[in-house]
């Protein structure tokens, strides 16, 4: 961990927040409450004070339940959304407030792979058009032959037959489409790829192929991944580090091996215990009670308090800060900080 600390991270996310306003018009914000007219704006707090680092060459996996803000984090980093607060730095340069012209060089470096390969390719464009367009756009000086060479090269590297270029996306299967979507991201020679659940829409038999393809690309092209997923077995296979998100807040960040062998945050423990295992003849899942609170009215204090068996008064009033642990992980939990977790946990 020492040498990692010397090298500055490729991507730094600092105190990132994103709120989506529910009441958009002026009239919607006017409320009649307790005999007087007030203005209030409700908003969905999708991402709350997320701080993450992604180092060069690693694959940081972001996991969490649906609705916890994973995809929002990915879209914020990709520049598809603008953060409500916080900063994003790429190679030390702030990228979240750039204009469209200023961000252009970064578009070559940061690329994104989307969840649904049935929607992420333009249905009216042939594969050739879809792959040539970004090459031409970012390399205006390329000759037609150079563009064609680049397209052929990326298609070969993702294992799609380059003679299929005249076909339309609907002529391909889901796995092939996702390969083509990956090829399109690779056409501009990126160094950082944001993958927003790239395999969750695919058949299980295809998932491993696509995952291995992404790992190969990582080795051969020196890519860095921000990998959004809800599938913990994928994380174990793919990720070098894992960040666990709950209700738009980071609970725990740790190396993959550390996290799987020694989860610390109560939510991480519950999440890991939910992974089905073959050897499980006596499953002892941690059963979480209740539902995720609505992100419109966030609970004060720890976001996990309503479902945590260790929650006490402090958890209900004070937001836990991320604290570095001796094994390199970072955990935001009062109970861990106070050593309450080691006590005999009820229900375990």
């Amino acid at each position, binding site marked *: 961990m020492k040498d990692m600390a010397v090298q500055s991270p490729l991507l730094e996310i600092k105190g990132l927040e994103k709120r989506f306003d529910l009441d958009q018009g002026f009239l919607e914000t006017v409320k009649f409450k307790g005999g007087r007219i007030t203005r209030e704006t409700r908003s969905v707090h999708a991402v709350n004070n997320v701080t993450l680092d992604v180092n060069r060459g690693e694959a940081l996996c972001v996991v969490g339940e649906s609705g916890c803000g994973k995809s929002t984090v990915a879209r914020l980093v990709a*520049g598809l959304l603008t953060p409500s607060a916080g900063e994003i730095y790429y190679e030390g340069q702030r990228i979240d407030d750039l204009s469209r012209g200023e961000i252009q060089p970064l578009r070559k470096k940061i690329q994104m792979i989307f969840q649904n390969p049935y*929607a*992420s390719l333009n249905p009216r464009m042939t594969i050739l058009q879809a792959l040539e*367009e970004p090459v031409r756009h970012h390399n205006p000086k390329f000759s037609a032959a150079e563009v064609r060479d680049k397209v052929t090269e990326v298609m070969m590297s993702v294992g799609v037959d*380059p003679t299929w270029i005249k076909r339309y996306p609907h002529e391909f299967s889901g796995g092939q489409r996702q390969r083509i979507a990956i090829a399109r991201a690779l056409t501009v020679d990126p160094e950082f790829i944001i993958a927003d659940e790239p395999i969750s829409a695919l058949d299980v038999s295809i998932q491993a192929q696509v995952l291995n393809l992404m790992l190969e690309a990582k080795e051969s092209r020196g890519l860095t991944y921000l990998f959004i997923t809800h599938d913990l077995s994928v994380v174990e296979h793919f990720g070098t580090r894992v960040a666990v998100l709950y209700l738009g807040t980071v609970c725990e960040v740790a190396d993959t091996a550390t996290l799987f062998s020694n989860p610390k945050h109560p939510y991480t423990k519950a999440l890991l215990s939910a992974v089905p295992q073959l050897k499980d003849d006596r499953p002892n899942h941690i059963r979480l009670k209740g539902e995720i609170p609505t992100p419109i009215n966030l609970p004060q204090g720890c976001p996990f308090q309503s479902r945590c068996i260790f929650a006490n008064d402090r958890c209900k009033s004070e937001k836990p800060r991320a604290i570095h642990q001796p094994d390199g992980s970072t955990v935001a939990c009062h109970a861990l900080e106070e050593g309450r977790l080691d006590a005999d946990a009820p229900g375990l």
Partner: protein
Amino acid sequence: MSTETVNPRTEPSRWSKIWNSNMGYSFRKNPVAIFSMAVFLIIAVSAFFAPLIAPYDPYDPASIDIMNSEYPPFWVSGALPEFSLGTDDQGRDLWSTILYGTRLSLLIGICAVALQAFLGISIGLIAGYVGGRVDSLLMRLADIQLSFSTLMVAIIFLAVTQAMFGSETFNQYAVYFLIAVIGVAEWPQYARTVRATVLAEKKKEYVDSARVLGFGPGRIMVRHILPNSLSPIFVISTVQVANAIISEASLSFLGLGMPPSQPSLGSLISSGFDYIFSGSWWITAIPGIVLVVLVLVINLLGDWMRDVLNPKLYKG
């Protein structure tokens, strides 16, 4: 090309692609569509080749003899064999005049719709893609435009221009005035439809991926969103051509459109209207039937196209 051998599949020709597509199949299975298309093509082709088909040139005063006026069509007694559909009040051969008139009506209809489409698609794309205040502003403009009836706007505009430039100049440029006024008056139809489709398409991931790849908004709108919004545009285009032809005919009927020396279907109907009770019903009736048939087949084609391109029935 360098060393690798890329053998593109032998592509089927464009025509066979269209013929074998879903739309081609549904066309072949739909007798109404085939019939409408056939009638439309007959009208359109004969109108387009009017100078070749028509026995007389109704625009040439030298070929018109006022003494030939009001001869009935061939099946009525007293007809002259050289005027198969009879003649109008000025002694023009009705068959030739209808051919030329249909040509003018179609030309005005299609050009006006092209203008509507250009304005409406640009405004709709910008409103839908940019959103926010631009969207509100443009859509309120469209609402204001829609709250005036097309005919009212057209009548005011044409009456004012006629008074401003005088009949002589107005008659000379009547085609352009008609195209402009019908084109401008109906753009909100397109703008609203396109905006609605853009709002739906904009949320799809291929638009996000185009943004991440760094394409500009203009490129995304024109190259990525527009090709995916074409089906509703096709459907309203057919209906709008029919509407534009009707608008043109109404304006000409009211004396604000094409001058009697260059009659469109509408002005022909209108010129025969004065003689309808004196027995010369054919001057109004025959162009009227042509107009109704033309508009009807275009509307039937539009109906068929709406059914085929309906995303609930078939998603292309």
